[in-house]
């Protein structure tokens, strides 16, 4: 008896398309839902609050007096303070010279103690050798190896090294720890290696503001590094800034530290979301009624804008990235404007993106304070808008074919 052969003439592609559209739609709706305010009231498993910097801001004025009160010395010190604070991400810094003292006004959400470390430490780095008349093995003075007074200065200090790089290195016990690697200027390498050869197998040290970290010289090693006792990322960042923001030429001290009123505006997140919704509805309703743009382009633009803002806000919530709410409102306006322009002007997209990339990238590195922060955010949002436009066009195309 012949068995009947069953032939399945079944096209899998439309089914897969349906499934893909359903999955993508679910992702779109999820990102919109997460981006909306008050999500955290309905979903308790994960924290869907925006990590707002509003309540973490503080503002202080530091008055710093120096031994050398010449204008050049004061200006050099101001430059170093600015580099340190800007490098750490302090939102607003202003410094000025008043009666031969430096006034530093700081408004930031960063850790107070770490900011104070950046301002209070001279960080005078010198390579030192042990004094021959000091007993470092004295059991009654176990801290002798740490005191700068027990060491002799050498000709080597921070200015002889082009950079101090902090990274993890393998220790002798096989584990990894943080070290500060001193990288020499090429012209000084040979001379420094000769210096180290003199002390091969012996302990020398790196004196930082009178406290010494010992270093046992191994002439076979090409790396001159000292251990760092912290694992905290922020403290490591502070150390790197202290090492690399410049050599302070004069002694100084903080005379006073005064609290100031914080001048950062507070904006309600619900107000911003309402603003975005109202702005989108009013703008696209006007565009639809006035027929200035074709409905296809309008739909693509609306979907792309909604996705851009939703994905951006959802990412901020999921990764708990600290954010300033007043910046969010300005970013939303610019995001809606740029997405509309890019959606409508196919011929202009490359030029708009190129010019924005040049200006935003320059502002990130050369700008300061909130301007630098908003430039960084807008670069991400512009790239996201471009991606969302592509996704929107694909999505609308797929849905039309169903």
């Amino acid at each position, binding site marked *: 008896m012949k068995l009947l052969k069953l032939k399945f003439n079944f096209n899998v592609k439309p089914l897969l398309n349906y499934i893909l559209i359903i999955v993508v739609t679910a992702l779109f709706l999820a990102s919109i839902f997460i981006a909306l305010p008050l999500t955290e009231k309905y979903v308790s498993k994960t924290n869907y609050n925006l990590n707002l910097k509003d309540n973490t801001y503080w503002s202080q004025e530091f008055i710093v007096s120096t031994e050398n009160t010449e204008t050049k010395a004061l200006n050099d010190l101001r430059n170093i303070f600015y580099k340190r604070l800007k490098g750490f991400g302090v939102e607003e810094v202003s410094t000025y010279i008043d009666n031969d003292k430096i006034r530093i006004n700081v408004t930031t959400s960063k850790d107070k103690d770490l900011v104070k470390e950046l301002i209070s430490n001279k960080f005078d780095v010198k390579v030192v050798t042990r004094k021959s008349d000091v007993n470092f093995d004295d059991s009654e003075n176990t801290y002798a190896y740490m005191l700068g007074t027990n060491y002799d200065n050498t000709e080597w200090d921070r200015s002889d090294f082009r950079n101090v790089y902090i990274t993890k290195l393998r220790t002798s016990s096989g584990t990894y720890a943080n070290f500060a690697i001193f990288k020499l200027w090429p012209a000084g390498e040979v001379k420094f290696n000769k210096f180290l050869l003199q002390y091969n197998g012996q302990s020398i040290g790196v004196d930082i503001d009178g406290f010494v970290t010992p270093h046992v010289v191994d002439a076979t090693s090409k790396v001159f590094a000292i251990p760092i006792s912290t694992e905290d990322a922020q403290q490591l960042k502070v150390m790197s800034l202290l090492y690399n923001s410049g050599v302070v030429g004069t002694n100084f001290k903080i005379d006073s530290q005064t609290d100031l009123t914080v001048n950062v505006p507070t904006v309600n997140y619900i107000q911003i979301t309402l603003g975005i919704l109202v702005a989108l509805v009013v*703008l696209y309703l006007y565009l639809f009624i006035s027929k200035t743009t074709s409905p296809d382009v309008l739909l693509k633009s609306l979907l792309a804008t909604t996705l851009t803002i939703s994905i951006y806000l959802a990412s901020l919530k999921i990764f708990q990235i600290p954010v300033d709410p007043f910046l969010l409102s300005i970013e939303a306006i610019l995001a809606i404007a740029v997405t509309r*322009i890019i959606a409508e002007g196919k011929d202009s997209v490359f030029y708009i993106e190129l010019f924005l990339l040049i200006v935003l990238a320059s502002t990130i590195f050369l700008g300061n304070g909130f301007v630098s922060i908003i430039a960084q955010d807008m670069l991400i949002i512009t790239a996201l808008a471009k991606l969302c436009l592509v996704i929107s066009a694909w999505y609308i195309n797929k849905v039309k074919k169903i």
Partner: protein
Amino acid sequence: MDIIINLFNNWTILEKVNTLILIFIILLVVPGFVWIFTKQAKLAHISFDSLAIAGVLTLITLVVTNLVFKVDITYTFKLIPFIVFFIVILCIGTMTGFYMQNHKQRDFDMTKVKAEAFNDAFRLTISCILLFTAFAVLTPSILLPILLSLGLSLATIWLHYFLVFKLLK
């Protein structure tokens, strides 16, 4: 003029150098690229003028706001130049894009660029008015900076169009 003197004194040498380089990049590199792509000195000239006048207008507005209306120029006001330059870049980008897409057509002339510049200016104006107004109403703590940004953005959009209209023949 106190605001400018204070600004100058409160900046370190590094900040002044960084700001000068940033202004150089915005005023020269962007028009430079416009010239490289379009080979039209007039379009590069319009780009430079739009950016330079936008910068000067923003500075004057902030000085007048501080001196005449006795408003403290806080951190939020420092974002106004960023917003204004962002809008100007959009205008320059659309102008360059339109020219590059259409200049090889047989019946192309600069009147088409002028017409397109008008349409772009009109669309951007409506967008800015609706967007900025919605946020100004709903976020009163930053009302004044948003309104100033709106005013300056509209001024620079139509300034750009005026330059296109007058300088392109």
